[in-house]
């Protein structure tokens, strides 16, 4: 067990805290969205404060209506006492208590009585042979089958599945919360794909106009599955810093599974861009970020001359609009980097290593 937690348990301080607060498990909990709340109704706008590290919409409790504020542990305690944001611990009297807080004295670097070494909960590797079993009927684990390789042809007239507006973090692309339990089952978790993303055309979250049927407010993953079933691939367009946040590769694997050929954005976050490449999706950026605005609902998108994809070479996008007009847009790519053997999804990396 973690040494500092072991020391904490030994001092009995946990039990002191239990009298006035809930002590949660030695785990990530609400910080990563593992929080089953029943103190607010669904859709109820409410404020929370924490000493956590991330506060994207829906991050802590799955609800985009929760306003999450981050600060230091000391200040979090101060607000816990006040119970309101309408309070400045530096200058105000604590509402209801009638006292002004004094700043805490500096904490020592290390626990006064040291840490306690404890190997409880640790399991060293086995020396003999071990059988790894995955139940084929499991809804939480699924042995991977390699993705279909790229046929080497250009992508022509692919439907635009989604044009995402504003922040599109990995929490928007592949939300955690109730979906966390499917992290080992690619097909099942893919039902959450883009369910947090904001559709640029109508501002709705997680739903799009079906590119094949024109039906309104269809779940993005469902439309993607329909396009895949029709034998086609699709493209996603995103805004600035697309894919920021968590390292979860499901944000790349789910699109790959459901038929994504390319993601075109104003810019990417580092980990996500790398994940897209490794799963065999082309990450492309607008040479002119303003070209983002040229992409319209119902567009058919073509990526041309892909057979001659080379390090640093721009890619030409032709966007055919529903009104019959079209735009030619130049895109940048960074595939020059990819020169290793691919483990899971072979085609793009082999291609770029030539």
């Amino acid at each position, binding site marked *: *067990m973690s040494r500092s*937690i072991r020391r*904490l348990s030994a001092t009995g*301080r*946990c039990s002191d805290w*239990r009298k006035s607060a809930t*002590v949660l*498990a*030695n*785990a*990530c909990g609400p910080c990563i969205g*593992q929080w*089953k709340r029943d*103190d607010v109704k669904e859709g109820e*706008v409410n404020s*929370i*404060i924490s*000493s*956590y*590290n991330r*506060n*994207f919409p829906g991050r802590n409790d799955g609800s985009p209506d929760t*306003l999450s*504020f*981050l600060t230091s*542990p*000391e200040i*979090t305690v101060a607000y816990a006492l006040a119970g*309101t*944001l*309408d309070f*400045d611990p530096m200058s105000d009297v604590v509402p209801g208590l009638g*006292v002004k807080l004094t*700043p805490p004295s500096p*904490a*020592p*670097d290390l*626990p006064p009585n040291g840490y306690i070494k404890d190997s*409880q*909960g*640790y*399991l060293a*590797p*086995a020396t003999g042979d*071990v059988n*790894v079993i995955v*139940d084929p009927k499991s809804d939480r*684990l699924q042995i*991977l089958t390699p993705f279909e390789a790229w046929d080497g042809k250009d992508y022509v007239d692919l439907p635009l599945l989604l044009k995402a507006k504003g*922040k599109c973090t990995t929490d928007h692309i592949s939300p*955690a919360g109730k979906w966390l339990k499917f992290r*080992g089952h690619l097909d099942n978790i893919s039902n959450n794909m883009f369910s947090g993303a904001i559709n640029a055309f109508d501002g709705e979250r997680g739903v799009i106009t079906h590119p094949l049927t024109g039906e309104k407010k269809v779940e993005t993953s469902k439309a993607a599955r329909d396009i895949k079933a029709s034998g086609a691939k699709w493209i996603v367009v995103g805004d600035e810093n697309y894919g920021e946040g968590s*390292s979860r590769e499901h944000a790349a694997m789910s699109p790959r599974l459901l038929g994504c050929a390319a993601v075109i954005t104003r810019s990417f976050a*580092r980990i996500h861009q*790398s994940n897209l490449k490794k799963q065999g999706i082309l990450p492309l950026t607008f040479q002119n970020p303003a070209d983002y605005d040229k992409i319209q609902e119902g567009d058919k998108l073509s990526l041309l001359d892909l057979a001659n994809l080379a390090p640093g070479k721009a890619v030409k996008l032709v966007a055919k609009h529903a009104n019959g007009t079209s735009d030619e847009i130049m895109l940048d790519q960074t595939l020059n980097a*990819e020169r*290793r*053997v691919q*483990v*899971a999804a072979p085609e793009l990396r082999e291609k770029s290593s030539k």
Partner: protein
Amino acid sequence: MIRVESTPEFVAEAYRKMDERIAVIRKRLGRPLTLAEKHIFGHLDDPHTEDLHPGRSYLQLRPDRVAMQDATAQMALLQFMSAGLKSVAVPSTVHCDHLIQARVGASEDLKNAVVTNKEVYDFLRSVSQKFNIGFWQPGAGIIHQVVLEQYAFPGGMMIGTDSHTPNAGGLAMFASGVGGADAVDVMAGLPWEVMFPQRIGVHLKGKMNGWASAKDIILVTLGILTVKGGTNAVIEYFGEGAESISATGKGTICNMGAELGATTSVFPYDASMERYLRATERGALADLANKNKHLVTLDDEVYTSPEKYFDRVIEIDLDKLEPYVVGPHSPDAARPISELKTAAKENGWPMSLTNALIGSCRIHRMKIFAVRRRWLIRLLRKARRRQSIFA
């Protein structure tokens, strides 16, 4: 067979290789190096031929370790299984911290998690056992805390399948969050490919006082750089202000460097890290770091003329540091605490707080629970004397 632990022998060998590779690069570049550059150059797959342009060149690196949490480990290890290898090629660990749902409280929630996640835990346990991976069971600790206590070492390089992996920068380790496929490459003996990051130096001056804490340093930095300001950059903290922060406080700052989009964040090795290593029974690693200070700190010339060697330098005066509250919805919606009331009124945010949550992987739990508790109790006593609602 490789050992899971960061043994003194393993660390000594890592330093030997770093020395060799950095010597090659010093000849090539002929200039002083930042600490992050030493980490990077000291782990180059081939220091003779790699192209070295920050913000442009993709590097092939050889990390010392891999860490995975239970949500991302599933897909990483499903991919690793298909590589057909007998063992991981570098020390690797799995930590079961993500799948425990907070509902009632510690013991009941843990019990429920063990039941509901049984097949996932069984899979991760057996696959770890089979491929020579250290396995930390549910309830045994949060990945970043366990790594800091057990496996991180100054000068080392680690990748982890969690964006907050840079927490280990609190022990002068170059620790970067990656996707599972990157982790699979490294566990399979292939190099890790990453863009040579730009170098952002954060010069910490003065010393914190009053309400200010390590957390406020990163919140202020977020306000300055924003959530994409660190993309393809390493944030390197230095200066006399850095020395006054505990190793775990440094970990807090590096952890949230993930919110900047940074490749990682690091602090140079110093006395606070030595104290932490000795307190966690790793005195031998402290001795090794002391002997190899040239590998685990930035060059003197960089320290004295940072603007010459970093792509950008930010200065933060800790004497004047005010507590910050950021949010909602983005960690770079930053403001000093004195401006929160007005912002809440102007934006119509609900004033009433439904929950206050303390903790997470980036917090030194002893500090909160032991020291702050005394402070809290003093507060409550004071309140009681005034016959408040706490009486």
